[in-house]
């Protein structure tokens, strides 16, 4: 297998529900070993896209390839190499954590060690491993979801909103777990509507809204692409002035030159580049205003 072969290829993917177009011509590639994020507001088409890649839904048109398979055919050989954390999925209530993970291990040809996986997700203390699933907290159940997705030692892992509903501490800890997947050499496709999650975890991000990809690239270059510098300062009357420029060099030279000539300081001067958050909010702006209506 050549490393140039992408783990996931999506070309012009469309999905209609009756007249409603949930996914409208999405294309992207995920390289092997990469953590790729689909970032967008609720209802953007993230889950529909991911569930087509997972083989849960068929597509209306376009082509998708996952590890060289068409997921719609639901080949067992593909499912043996893929781990799935759904946005929400229940579990048997009357099974113990270690029992569940051990049972799942038996479904795969080359599973990882049960205790090792419990360690990776942080369910390895004896009380947690022996707990009945129905007694777990929401965060612990999410850890179990991840353990069940990892136990088969998959090459590719889908994480659909892995930290939605987490408190900040739990989110940090989930992030460090997901980063360990990168160290294990796994390819990860994650969806999120948390911008900082995408920034923290993803090698590349696609911002998706209304079923279309609006921007794509590494988090750092995404903000560069549409980013202008915003230079702010106070003029002689004390009024705060703000100006957006592609390159601030000349403006700063003029401002500082003038200030020195006047023998004054340049009060409240700042040069700011928009963060990914600004890009994200900008791109998805009318969506949120629709939600507010």
């Amino acid at each position, binding site marked *: 297998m050549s490393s140039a072969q992408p783990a996931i290829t999506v070309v012009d993917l469309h999905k209609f529900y009756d007249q409603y177009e949930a996914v409208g011509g999405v294309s992207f590639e995920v390289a092997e070993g990469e953590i790729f994020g689909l970032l967008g507001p609720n209802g953007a088409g993230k889950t529909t896209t991911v569930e087509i890649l*997972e*083989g*849960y839904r068929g597509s209306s048109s376009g082509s998708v390839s996952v590890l060289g398979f068409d997921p719609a055919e639901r080949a*067992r050989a593909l*499912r*043996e190499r*893929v781990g*799935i954390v*759904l946005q*929400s*999925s*229940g*579990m*048997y*209530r*009357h*099974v113990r954590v270690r*029992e569940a993970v051990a*049972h*799942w291990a*038996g*479904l*795969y*040809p080359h599973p990882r060690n049960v205790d090792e996986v419990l360690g990776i997700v942080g369910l390895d203390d004896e009380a947690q491993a022996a707990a*009945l699933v129905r007694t777990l907290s929401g965060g612990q159940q999410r850890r179990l979801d991840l353990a*069940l997705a990892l136990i*088969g030692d998959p090459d590719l892992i889908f994480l659909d909103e892995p930290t939605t509903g987490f408190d900040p501490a739990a989110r940090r800890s989930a992030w460090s777990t997901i980063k360990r997947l990168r160290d294990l050499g796994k390819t990860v496709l994650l969806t999120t509507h948390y911008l900082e999650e995408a920034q923290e975890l993803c090698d590349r991000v696609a911002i998706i809204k209304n079923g279309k990809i609006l921007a794509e690239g590494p988090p750092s270059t995404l903000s560069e692409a549409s980013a202008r510098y915003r230079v702010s300062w106070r003029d002689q009357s004390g009024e705060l002035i703000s100006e957006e420029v592609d390159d601030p060099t000349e403006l700063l030279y003029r401002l500082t030159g003038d200030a020195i000539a006047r023998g004054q300081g340049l009060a409240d001067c700042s040069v700011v580049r928009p963060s990914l958050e600004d890009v994200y909010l900008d791109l998805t702006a009318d969506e949120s205003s629709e939600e507010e209506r």
Partner: protein
Amino acid sequence: MSDTALAWRQYRLERKMFWRNPTAAFFSFVLPLIFLFLFGAVFSGSQANLNVLVPGIAGLSVMATTFNALATQMTFLREQGVLKRVRGTPLPGTSYLSGIIGSAATNAVIQILIIIVAGKLFFGLGWPKNWIELALFTVLGVACFAAMGVAFSHVIPNFEAAPAYTNLVFLPMIFISGVFFDVDNVPAFLRDIANALPLVHVINGISAALVTGAPIADHLSDLAVVAVWTLACVILAVRGFSWSARD
């Protein structure tokens, strides 16, 4: 691992979980036995009535442990997203469902055995007169009502509604099918309805095996009706099968 080995693993997990869930264990397991001893006490004066009751309760048990249990369980698994999760693993659907249905069938067999022993010890029946006939009607009854339970789970809108929906089918069926009294004593139109349904025929077969000793050859029409129902329910269960809840 082979598909059969995977089904066996699933079966063992299902057995373990069944005993850990006292409510489920109670409703599909203890309730028929309570019926048996309650009505057995009421009818204790008449061996003729007991001869109707014991096979009747056996039929009721077959239905409760398979139809009621599976309709409820499948609704739960679908609504909770367990089926969807399993669907994402390499476990073949047939292995998974075999494990679940096998567990329900085990409950049916255990029930029948308890009822046979109780019939012998407390209710004046001897040991079964025709074990092969008993096995045949039990297996066919289990297949029929298990498939019916899986198929019926697609009609149930959500888990909270599951007991109401299953009882809507279960209670009328056991009342007209001669579980507690001889079908010959009910009005003709009810008897016609009962005869069109499978339970009365399962009970006829079990009754022959336990009480009268009439050979299978005398109950071919009973076998035929149950077989037709089984086929129809299997088709409905397979064709309508859904791995995830309706949105």
